């Protein structure tokens, strides 16, 4: 033993201490050996540990420390050098490794710490995402709820169902204790409790609308929390232990049809709101969440829309019912009007016949009377009777053709006539009456008034007679003055009529007739009514008989003659002035001597007979054939007759100057006949004049005759004068169209 490292222990006999040291070292070593095992075990288990080689290092460090301590066990007793060497080696190694580890840890620990921070960060993030997802889920749920609610609400168009459903669904979705709807009353000054969820409260309970809490809710479109003590919220009878749940109120706009503009969402245009109050269950710690409030707001809007739809539907149903009623009423009115028109037409048709019959008798008998021996006075009287009755007959025709007048299909019978004579006749007709009434009658004809004019003589006379007659009728005393002049442009300026612009020309002149009377006059408010059919003034002395038609017909005639008629009066008792202007044609010299269209019985036209004129008459009716033949024979013609078309075509030749064809038999196509005749005579230039006899006076017949190339058309029954004038026309002018 060279190096005896036997160290004499300081305290050699302290065995207890030694024992404790021995045991502690042993346990330390054990621990030191087991820690790395544990580490390895757990690291093996975990997948993620990044610093394995650190572990190895650490493990080595620990193992060596353990080894050191273990070897220490042997150094308590006498030990050999080998042990000492081993011990030293172990310690050296341990030192190296520990230092290395220490150095390593300087790098690693910050890393490890940062891992921890990251972990914390991720956890926070996860928590945040969780929260967000929670929010989204709630939103989606809210959305689902709203959709469902909307669906429920909008699935009906009945107002009550909508509101009830709203409350029920809201109650269910939000788990409410109570839900109520307050509607404004008709006056708009109060809110009335209209619907509640649980029906525990008296419906009909009202609160005034201008409570501050209500105004507050109405002024905002959000759902606002209100105090459970406010009158709108205190719906349940208070029992002591209740801690009322939170209450929220929201406004529901009540929209009208007029609120829906095309491009406008009716935000501010409505003034009427209902109030919806929602109460959470009492005694629960629930609070109104934001998403719940949003849900309530959305529902309130949807309810508003649904209600307005229901309102629109109600309106349109009502409008439709109204329209149907109106339709029915209109239909009835139309049928009544039609019945009235038919009744009137029937009446007119009957009266037509009834009136014409006596007229006929009068005219017939007067003309017969005229043929007998009479003294000059008697003759004059009979002539007056005849003229008056002719006029009356015309008037009857016109009255009974009132509808034709109104249609505007009445046409004037234009012809040349003696204008001065017309006025003289009027005078003659009126004179007896004025003599009886002791009125003075004067006539003034303008110096440049032509003697002859072209127009409808009968109707002009009727108009003048009507106006003068009125003047006489309504004057008890005084004078009547008639003046007739040619209207010049100065006189036109007097006329205060807006759309009457008379334009005199070379072929026309305007006749102005003015009748002044000193009679009872007309009050200004009656003047517009004067020309109304059947209107009679009820005030004043103008209630003498009369159909009230006179002036209306007069006006129509004057209008047809492109003129204007008006009355002026200064008032009751101050007389009246009636003026009218009509357009008449200027008669040229050659017409003066002719006058072929007068209906005066004793006038003879130039040609009284047509000696030797060869004519051919075609008519399949024996009687009318003979009559026509007789007529023509009386006029001096040489007449051949044909009873059928074949016979006619056989017999017709160049010698016949005129052919008369009766085409009113059904089955006879007169027009085809005309064409065949023209064909027959196409080669020679002298074809006979073709005149058609027919009973039809309508436009269609006239037009077809024109188209077929007929030279004339006569309406049956034919009088001798008519026949005479037709023949004259044909011979003279080689053209004629229609005489009736």
């Amino acid at each position, binding site marked *: 033993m060279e190096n005896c490292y036997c160290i004499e222990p300081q305290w050699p006999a302290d065995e207890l201490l030694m024992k404790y040291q021995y045991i502690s070292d042993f346990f330390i070593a054990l621990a030191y050996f087991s820690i790395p095992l544990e580490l390895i075990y757990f690291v093996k288990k975990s997948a993620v540990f990044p610093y394995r080689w650190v572990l190895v290092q650490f493990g080595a460090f620990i193992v060596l420390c353990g080894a050191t301590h273990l070897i220490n066990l042997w150094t308590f007793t006498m030990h050999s050098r080998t042990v000492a060497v081993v011990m030293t080696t172990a310690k050296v190694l341990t030192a190296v490794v520990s230092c290395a580890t220490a150095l390593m840890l300087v790098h690693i620990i910050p890393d490890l710490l940062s891992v921890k921070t990251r972990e914390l960060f991720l956890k926070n993030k996860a928590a945040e995402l969780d929260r967000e997802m929670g929010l989204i889920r709630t939103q989606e749920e809210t959305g689902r709820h709203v959709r469902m609610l909307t669906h429920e609400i909008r699935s009906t168009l009945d107002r009550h169902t909508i509101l009830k459903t709203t409350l029920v669904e809201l109650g269910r979705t939000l788990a409410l204790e109570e839900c109520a709807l307050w509607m404004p009353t008709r006056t708009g000054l109060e809110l009335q409790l209209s619907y509640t969820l649980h029906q525990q409260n008296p419906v009909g309970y009202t609160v005034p609308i201008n409570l501050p809490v209500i105004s507050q809710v109405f002024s905002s479109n959000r759902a606002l929390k209100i105090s459970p003590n406010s009158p709108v919220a205190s719906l349940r009878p208070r029992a002591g232990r209740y801690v009322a749940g939170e209450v929220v109120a929201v406004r529901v706009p009540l929209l009208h049809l007029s609120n829906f503009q095309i491009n406008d969402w009716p935000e501010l245009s409505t003034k009427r709101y209902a109030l919806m109050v929602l109460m959470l269950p009492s005694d629960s710690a629930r609070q109104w969440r934001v998403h719940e409030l949003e849900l309530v707001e959305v529902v309130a809007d949807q309810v508003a829309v649904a209600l307005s739809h229901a309102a629109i539907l109600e309106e349109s149903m009502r409008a439709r019912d109204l329209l149907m009623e109106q339709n029915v009423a209109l239909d009835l009115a139309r049928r009544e009007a039609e019945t009235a028109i038919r009744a009137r037409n029937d009446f007119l048709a009957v009266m037509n016949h009834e009136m014409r019959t006596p007229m*006929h008798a009068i005219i017939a008998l007067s003309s017969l009377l005229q043929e007998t021996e009479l003294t000059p006075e008697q003759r004059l009287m009979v002539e007056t009777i005849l003229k008056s009755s002719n006029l009356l007959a015309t008037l009857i025709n016109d009255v009974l053709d009132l509808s034709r007048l109104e249609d505007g299909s009445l046409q004037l019978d234009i012809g040349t006539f003696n204008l001065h004579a017309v006025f003289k006749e009027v005078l003659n007709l009126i004179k007896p009456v004025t003599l009886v009434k002791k009125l003075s009658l004067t006539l003034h004809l303008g110096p440049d008034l032509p003697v002859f004019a072209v127009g409808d003589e009968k109707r002009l006379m009727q108009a003048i007679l009507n106006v003068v007659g009125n003047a006489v009728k309504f004057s008890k005393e005084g004078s009547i003055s008639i003046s007739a002049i040619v209207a010049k442009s100065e006189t036109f300026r007097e006329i205060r009529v807006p759309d009457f612009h008379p334009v005199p020309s070379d072929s026309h002149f305007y006749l102005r007739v003015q009748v002044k009377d000193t009679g009872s006059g007309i009050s200004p408010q009656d003047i517009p009514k004067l020309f109304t059919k059947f209107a009679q003034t009820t005030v004043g002395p103008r209630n003498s008989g009369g159909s009230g038609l006179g002036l209306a017909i007069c006006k129509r005639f004057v209008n047809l003659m492109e003129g204007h008629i008006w009355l002026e009066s200064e008032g009751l008792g101050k007389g009246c002035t009636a003026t009218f202007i009509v357009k008449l044609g200027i008669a040229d010299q050659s017409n003066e001597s002719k006058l072929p269209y007068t209906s005066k019985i004793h006038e003879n036209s130039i040609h009284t007979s047509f000696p030797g004129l060869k004519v051919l008459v075609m008519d*399949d009716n024996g*009687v009318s054939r003979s009559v026509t033949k007789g007529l023509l024979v009386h006029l001096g013609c040489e007449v051949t007759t044909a009873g059928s078309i074949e016979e006619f075509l056989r017999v017709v030749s160049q010698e016949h100057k005129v052919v008369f064809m009766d085409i009113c038999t059904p089955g006879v196509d007169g027009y085809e006949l005309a064409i065949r005749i023209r064909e027959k005579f196409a080669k020679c230039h002298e074809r006979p004049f073709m005149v058609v006899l027919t009973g039809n006076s309508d436009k269609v017949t006239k037009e077809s005759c024109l188209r077929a190339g007929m030279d004339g058309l006569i309406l049956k029954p034919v009088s001798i004068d008519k026949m005479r004038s037709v023949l004259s026309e044909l011979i003279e002018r080689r053209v004629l169209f229609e005489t009736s």
Partner: protein
Amino acid sequence: MEDVIHLQTQLLHYKVSLFKEGYLNDQFKELESLEDESNPKFVEEVVAIFFEDSHRLINELTKALEQKCIDFKKVDAYVHQLKGSSSSIGANKVQMACIAFRNYCHDMNIQGCLKCLQHVKEEFALVKNKLETLFKVEKEFLDANASNPII
């Protein structure tokens, strides 16, 4: 002398009554006006033709309306002819009856047609009677006048 005047008055009255009652209308007057020296019996001739024609037409109408299958077109044609004849004479009532008859024809109303035919027959008989009486009185007057002319 008095007889002649009496006859003349009677004639005049009778004529007037015929017009008043609507048996004859203006057309008859026209016919009368066509009568002159060259054509002295014009009216009588025409009236005779009328009677003949109308007899024939009425018979045809009766036959046609007795058929099982009535040919309304033919009936209408006959009535049209009758209407034409009567209007040429001036037989007013017959003409009116024919017009009504035609309407029923257009409506193809058998009962109406039969009724109208009956009416036409009656009217025709009446007017024939009246005209014959008229001619008789006229002849009497003319004969009396010829022997005792006052005009």
